[in-house]
């Protein structure tokens, strides 16, 4: 019986309609696009390099980041044994940069992760529920939106006291509202699409709909936004430490190092500027990653 139908189909539909081979899955094609973009490849390599020297710091240096000798204070770049110089208490700068990267990256990535989960959840909830739940969540977010990010981060961190956890918490709070906004917008858009209505019409539960239809559409934009948020987070978290509100000495951290080396700019200007280079490079990489991710996803959708 079905064979006859297939024959009918092949008579009715012109052969030109039939494509040659099946297309790959959505996420696989996104990664294919990413792999072909030279900028993304370059940036990924740099990021992998940074991750390597920070997480694998003991592998690239055997000096102690906390041990310094007053005799070896503020040596310039190229000093034998300290190829990037030393800081104001004589600690090897290269070592401090490598170990410092751990805390800097942690302080940058954790708040965004918090915002991704909390903000994403609230945004999807607000977007899918609509009504008073939506209003309550979005208006609350509006209040936090009323503060410029730096101001809010400084205010919260200033009141809670300094330290890595407080800095992460403060930045997490700062990043949740924009994440909620992005998630809510996309969820509201997906919710009104016909295929979601069709799913509802066939009796699927809300949770299943969110899991299979809404989430896939929301995940893309949220991830792109989170990546760009990391680049901001690096600058903000280092900035908080720069002000003395984040990581405390003697922990190595790029922002903190930048601050403590400020007095040294008259003595060893190049060494004093080094931590900022790390912050800049890392932030730039995440920014370019985010751009690459966005175009890899956009073109696919607009096809």
């Amino acid at each position, binding site marked *: 019986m079905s064979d006859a139908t297939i024959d009918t189909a092949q008579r009715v539909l012109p052969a030109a309609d039939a494509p040659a081979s099946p297309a790959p899955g959505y996420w696989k094609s996104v990664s294919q696009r990413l792999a072909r973009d030279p900028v993304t490849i370059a940036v990924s390599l740099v990021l992998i390099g940074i991750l390597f020297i920070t997480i694998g710091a003991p592998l690239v240096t055997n000096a102690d980041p906390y041990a310094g000798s007053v005799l070896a204070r503020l040596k310039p770049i190229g000093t034998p044994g300290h190829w990037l110089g030393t800081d104001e208490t004589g600690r090897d700068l290269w070592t401090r940069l490598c170990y410092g990267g751990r805390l800097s990256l942690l302080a940058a990535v954790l708040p965004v992760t918090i915002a991704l989960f909390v903000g994403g959840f609230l945004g999807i909830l607000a977007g899918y529920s609509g009504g008073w739940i939506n209003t309550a969540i979005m*208006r609350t977010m509006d209040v936090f939106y009323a503060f410029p990010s730096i101001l809010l981060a400084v205010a919260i961190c200033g009141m809670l006291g300094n330290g890595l956890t407080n800095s992460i918490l403060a930045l997490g709070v700062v990043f949740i509202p924009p994440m909620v906004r992005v998630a809510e917008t996309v969820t509201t858009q997906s919710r009104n699409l016909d295929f979601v209505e069709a799913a509802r019409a066939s009796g699927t539960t809300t949770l299943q709909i969110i899991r299979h239809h809404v989430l896939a559409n929301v995940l893309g934009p949220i991830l792109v936004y989170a990546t760009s948020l990391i680049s901001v987070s690096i600058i903000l978290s280092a900035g908080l430490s720069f002000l003395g509100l984040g990581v405390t000495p003697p922990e190595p951290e790029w922002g903190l190092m*930048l601050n403590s080396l400020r007095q040294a700019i008259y003595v060893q200007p190049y060494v004093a500027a080094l931590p900022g280079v790390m912050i800049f490079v890392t932030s730039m990489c995440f920014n370019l990653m985010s751009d690459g991710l966005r175009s890899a996803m956009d073109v696919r959708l607009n096809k």
Partner: protein
Amino acid sequence: MLVFALRRLLQAIPILLGVSLVVFGLVHIAPGNPIDMLMPPEASPEIVAQMKAAYGFDKPLYMQYLLWLLRAVRGDFGLSVFNAAPVWGQLVTALENTFILAILGAALGFALGILTGLIAALYHGRWPDKVASAIATAGVSLPHYWCAIVLVLVFAVFHDWLPAQGMGDDSLPIWQRLDFLVLPVVTLSLIPMGVIGRLVRATVLDILGQDFVGALSAKGLTRWPVLRHIIKNAAPPVLALMGLQFGYLLGGSILVETVFNWPGSGNLLNLAIFRRDIPVLQATILVLATFFVLLNLMVDIAQAAIDPRIRR
């Protein structure tokens, strides 16, 4: 239009109230008693009780909030814990200084941003685009406090061209102290330049790709009139973002002001945090946030005035 403006105004009121709640609440999330922050640890219990009553800490929380809010609306933020001078006066002076920086920084940043964005868009795909886009992206990714340090390095350390800190001699009028302005303003202009540059590029590219531009060119219009059309269409979102960026410069100047020791509201905030000067802290955050909300409000109304599609 009027209805839209009034409605936005009404919507701003609960937000402002929420902001004041957050600012008030901030003080109370700090570990420890607020009074402990104001008093030396060896103060006797009677003096502590006196100070509590004077500051109103003995009253229930919502009473404290209401009293504080009512006084704040009239500009009375009490006395600074650090130097016993009225908070309002210090804040106003500091705000004026920040305002100078913010206006100039915004002007420079916007001008450069529009330039880079236009170049990038009009030479899309060729090398000017890549260069201009790189500049704009760098503007957004650069930690501006680090740029401040680098600029100080180049202009004050390596060569003695510009002063590294402060506002100069107060007795001199501002236009004789312009050299103090240069470095902070340039630093502040970096992020707006980057942000506006990227938006202008994206918006102009988007407009260029639309059919009506092709139609205009086909009608025989030469370059300039088409450019005018493009600008008219690109203006609303860019102007809105400019308003936002100005707000960020006003409210987020703390890092740059710290590096240059510029006596503005950001610097005041920094000092207040480290001195635990609660009245100054609350006043500064509240005023800066209120500014931001009102600025957003004006931007929204201005946008709706230009683009009728926005008014619901």
